[in-house]
């Protein structure tokens, strides 16, 4: 996994709550058996008109969101289906971090497996970032943020700076780009001991 230490980039705003994984990557794209190439389908039903042209009113299609690598949304981002295709699509599109007041549990876990940081900030702080992004957008400018995982801080170049919390083990895995499974396999003796102590559950049939 690609390590994540600090990342500075353009912010795309998605001023919606309860963005579910069916919206992030609609079901018609889940038939693929690969992990890559999902970015073209990200937010497909919102992003494109029925004729396939970009939806001019959708947030990610605005000029100031071009090249965005940080996504800003409202509460309960990533709810619904467990599909890891959702973070795959976000990462493949170019996002390295999502900032929201809250995330659904499964999506939140899935982000860490893909080198993308889910940043939880308060409703007020998220609201402030929305205001700052809107102000920049009104001037036709992109709004930029830096997500610093080493310091656990989000900051812009105009005085906004907030700290956020990340579970320490997840943070270390991201910072060092560790292979989760490799780490767990280092505990194979403990796993075998557990199995021996519990007797493997009877599997009939």
């Amino acid at each position, binding site marked *: 996994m690609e390590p994540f230490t600090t990342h500075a980039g353009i912010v795309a705003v998605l001023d*919606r*709550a*309860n963005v*579910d994984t*069916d*919206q992030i990557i*609609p*079901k*018609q794209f*889940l*038939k*693929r*058996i*690969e*992990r890559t190439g999902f970015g073209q389908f990200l937010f497909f*039903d919102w992003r494109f008109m*029925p004729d396939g042209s970009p939806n001019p009113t959708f947030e990610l299609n605005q000029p100031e969101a071009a090249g965005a690598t940080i996504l800003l949304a*409202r*509460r*309960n981002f990533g*709810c*619904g*289906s*467990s*599909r*890891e295709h959702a*973070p795959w699509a976000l990462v493949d599109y170019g996002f390295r971090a999502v900032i929201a007041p*809250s995330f*659904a*549990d*499964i999506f939140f*876990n*899935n982000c860490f*497996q*893909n080198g993308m940081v889910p940043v939880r900030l308060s409703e007020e702080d998220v609201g402030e970032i929305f205001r700052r992004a809107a102000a920049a957008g009104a001037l036709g400018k992109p709004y930029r943020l830096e997500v610093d995982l080493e310091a656990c801080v989000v900051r812009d170049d105009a005085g906004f700076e907030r700290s956020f919390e990340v*579970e*320490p*083990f*997840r943070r*270390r895995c991201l910072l060092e780009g560790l292979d*989760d*499974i490799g*780490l*767990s*396999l280092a*505990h*194979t003796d*403990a*796993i075998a001991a*557990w*199995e021996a102590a*519990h007797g*493997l*559950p*009877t*599997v*009939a*049939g």
Partner: protein
Amino acid sequence: MASPRTLLDKIWDEHVVCSPAGELPLIYIDRHLVHEVTSPQAFEALRLAGRQVRRPEATFATPDHNVPTTDRRLPIADPVSKQQIDTLRANCREFGVRLFDLGDADQGIVHIIGPELGITQPGMTIVCGDSHTATHGALGALAFGIGTSEVEHVLATQTLRQAKPKSFEVRVNGRLSPGVTAKDLVLWIIGKLSTEGGAGFVLEYTGECIRSLGMSERMTVCNMSIEAGARAGMIAPDSTTFDYLRGRDFAPRDFDRAVAAWERLPSDPGATYDRVEIFSAADVVPQVTWGTNPAQVVGVDGSVPDAGSLADPGERANVSRALEYMGLAGGTLIADIPVDRVFIGSCTNSRIEDLRAAASVVQGYQVAPSVRAMVVPGSSRVKRQAEKEGLDLVFQAAGFDWREAGCSMCLGMNPDTLAPGERCASTSNRNFEGRQGKGGRTHLVSPAMAAAAAVRGHFVDIRDWEYR
């Protein structure tokens, strides 16, 4: 004396393999359920890393999400879908995983066949790359959905990295009124808790109402825990659970000894939860969702909310957006909403009890001329049982399509989808935008309510139904 523990505490404590300093605990996984959509990338990564499946005999697979529900003897028309199902077959063969394949007598929706075959048992940890894995908690297991990277992790290690979730007791006192079902109860609870009220928690449903529910109803309740944001929902095992499991294919051979162990699982008197909510079953009426998430729900005797009357601007925007998508005006009576399609199926409501309830409503009636209706049994076993009871004939005589088992129009990955603008009364679990087909409009209801809507062509209060 040891301090009192909850059901969650007991299962959790039992399954901690190790808690190395500076790492999240490793939790042992007893059963791993696998389907075609969220597993191919996990098997591929395993192969690339030269890793094995640690316990293939604890891993069970079935194709369900992306399978046609038409005649199984016909080839799968969509080549991409066919490839995904072929890939599952090849992976199961290569890694020695038991597969309940298309055409197998035991194929079905993974969350239907787990309990049905007795693979799901009390006290177990169970995972699947699917958010509705919470269903299995109805048997007193700790069961939750995981992502594909975690599927790979479980395949390779038979464990998962997990911080212990918080516990949340959802106590429901009293009994449900006639005509009110487990589906209405869970939709109502989600409406109270919101779509994220359960985030970070495992819900344990308790109380007289829950104890009075049969296994199928308990599965309906636990199934939708994720729609309240909770990864898992669970119900302490009792005689209902043991009676359900006895004699099932994969149930323990020494069943009485297993029961003796399972009887120690329920939460101890005095055990404390991180959060408690107490509800009264008498307050629940048949429910219908009006919006684009399952918490946007109201009683069948109610009406669609008026966004303009909401004080909070964020909530006003959410409701307006949902109503615009749903093509509904604020204030519309639920009973005045017409439906074009009816879907009876999904891991929430496709067990034999659900089909019996729906069939008893349609018996002696016809599907309204403006409605297309279908029944998709949850498993091949459910289908056979229904046919044995003649339910297929009741449905077909009324004008319903009678299909093969699968997830079908719950998520519309297969050809069973809504057309843009079509409105559906559905017994499934999600009414998200486009969930059942791009532009489709989903109203979540119980099987009986869906059946009645099929007959009348609009929502009706099932409590007033004249059974024939």
